[in-house]
């Protein structure tokens, strides 16, 4: 036989036996696809959320993966543009053929657009965004879950506080994004049953002047103003509220605004501000009886060791989401999509960093109002202002 031919034959035999028959232990990895916005206007949140996922994936893989299979994590930047988010979703579904998607571009509107594709593809989607419309109506959201509290629960929690303080007339100043509009929609349901009178105003996330809206609110003589945005426009709101002398009222910002950088930009104008938040930013202030306290401290240590900066609750949100995915896949005993979906819906009293998660077939949103507190910003740190 010609020596070159012989060599080729030997090589192909080796290839056939060496690679076509993998050893039983090296199973195919579990593919989890994630989409967040680490550039564009929403990049503010995206960087930390991506870091939270990175940390969770790394921890899980270091401990041997999910049921012996490593996680192969595929990440795309949606650049804060819904269109880019949708393109990335298609790529995850068609090219990367992922087993599950975690993270919806850190913009509620984008997550809602994305779930049109993921529902059709019948693939489990764990959103890390806020708006309640991501998981309702449940009949059209069979495959979609989220690792954040529903706006309905947030509004109930706020109403608890207002009732406690004897506040009856409030204004909601929500931005025109999915995040702000979802909040308005939920408050419209919650307010009548809690005896709250609400005036609704909106603004655009790119707005640089809110005097017109605030002037109207001032004339209406409300006792509290609730602002709903994740954009820097929320700082403009605080500054102009102060300028118009509205800072004597109870000013409230949403959980999407709990960010040191915003507080520093607002400076003096944030001194009377309350923010509704998960417990994460005030972990150290929680009573020792709260089981959340130790979990928050543990994530903080791990995050600081890896990234050399402090984590925020957005990182916790995505960290929990990856761990929820793992819990579901483990429970389902594999990546069969329908089984993973059912396993997710069956998760209850699951201790995460953001709170205690309870999913069910009817409720695809994990947290409840018990996981929320009111915080303020004092001397360069968020402090607990209202616990229960």
């Amino acid at each position: 036989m010609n020596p070159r031919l012989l060599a080729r034959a030997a090589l192909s035999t080796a290839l056939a036996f060496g690679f076509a028959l993998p050893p039983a232990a090296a199973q195919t990895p579990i593919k989890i696809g994630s989409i967040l916005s680490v550039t564009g206007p929403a990049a503010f949140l995206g960087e930390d959320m991506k870091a939270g996922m990175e940390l969770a994936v790394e921890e899980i893989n270091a401990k041997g993966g999910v049921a012996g299979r490593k996680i192969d994590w595929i990440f795309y930047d949606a650049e804060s543009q819904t269109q880019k988010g949708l393109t990335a979703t298609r790529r995850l579904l068609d090219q990367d053929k992922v087993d599950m998607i975690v993270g919806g571009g850190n913009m509620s509107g984008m997550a809602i657009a994305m779930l049109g594709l993921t529902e059709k593809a019948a693939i489990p989607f764990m959103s890390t965004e806020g708006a309640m419309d991501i998981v309702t109506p449940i009949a059209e959201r069979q495959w979609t879950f989220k690792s954040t509290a529903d706006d309905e629960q947030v509004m109930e929690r706020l109403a608890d506080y207002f009732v406690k303080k004897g506040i009856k007339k409030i204004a909601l100043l929500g931005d025109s994004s999915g995040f702000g509009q979802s909040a308005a929609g939920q408050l419209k349901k919650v307010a009548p049953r809690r005896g709250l009178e609400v005036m609704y105003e909106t603004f655009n996330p790119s707005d640089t002047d809110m005097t017109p809206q605030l002037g109207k609110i001032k004339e209406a003589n409300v006792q509290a103003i609730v602002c709903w945005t994740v954009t820097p426009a929320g700082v403009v709101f605080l500054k102009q509220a102060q300028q118009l002398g509205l800072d004597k009222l109870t000013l409230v910002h949403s959980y999407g605004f709990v960010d040191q950088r915003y507080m520093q930009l607002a400076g003096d104008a944030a001194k009377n501000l309350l923010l509704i938040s998960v417990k994460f930013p005030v972990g150290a202030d929680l009573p020792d009886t709260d089981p959340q306290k130790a979990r928050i401290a543990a994530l903080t240590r791990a995050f600081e060791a890896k990234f050399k900066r402090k984590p925020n609750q957005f990182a916790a949100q995505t960290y929990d989401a990856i761990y929820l995915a793992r819990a579901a896949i483990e429970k389902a005993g594999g990546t069969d999509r329908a089984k993973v979906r059912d396993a997710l819906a069956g998760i209850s009293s699951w201790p995460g960093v953001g709170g205690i998660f309870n999913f069910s077939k009817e409720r695809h949103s994990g947290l409840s109002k018990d996981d929320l507190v009111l915080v303020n910003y004092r001397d360069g740190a968020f402090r607990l202002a209202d616990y229960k």
Partner: protein
Amino acid sequence: MEQVANLLLSGLSSGSVYALVALGFNVIFKSTGAINFAQGEWVMMGGMVAATSYAAHWPLGLAILCAVLAVVMVALLSERLILRRIKKPTALAVTLMMIAIAICSKSLVMLLLGKNPANLPGFSGSEPVLWFNLRIHPQTFWIVGITCLVMLATHWFFERTVLGRAMRAVAAQPEAAALCGIEPRMAMALSFGLAAGVGALAGTIITPLTLTSFDHGTVLGFKGFSAAMLGGLGSLPGALIGGVALGTLEALAGGLISSHFKDAVAFVALLLTLFLRPTGILGRGAVEKV
């Protein structure tokens, strides 16, 4: 009553900034016939550079000066390195190139200065001034004052100085101006420097009120363009009238009708101008003699 007065004041301050942005559009339109879509980005860049320098503990005045100079440099470099290399610098070619420069400027700011919004302190604090029943942010006075000064200075420059007249000559009749020894390219560079300087200044005076970040420029540019169209493209007093009119309309629509309509006002104003009076309030139609 108090509400309307507050609205007018807020309209006046945002309108003044629109006027400065519109001024930049007009200066470049006058000398090149092109629409400078990078104008909004230059405004943002001015605010960002000033805020970054201030955050590095530079004195406020120096930070502002540095911002204006930096943006003028960027504009002159864009003109020298990119626009001057266009074989046939028609108005359309320059306009298209400016869109490219706008996108590059935005990305440059994002990469060099980061994605975080930035802030400047009010030039004379942020303690509101009480005037009758109105609480006015002291920065409002700075904005309106600086806008008036800049408007007067540009007017004086174009009407009274040799350089300004030379630029007008180039705009009116490039060949004739060249025969008289005026270099048309020089006029173009000068108009870019001027527009960038005014834009950067606008960016620094508005930042204490509204913050700024790398993605603020596009909207400001659009509002400035609408203001320029409304007032009359190419007319300097038109920029002032268009800017203040647009700012006031926006504030009144937001406060008295609904905040949903606030941003739509600029679009509607632009459409109505194009439908009813394409030359704007003070603009003169281009007359072509054959």
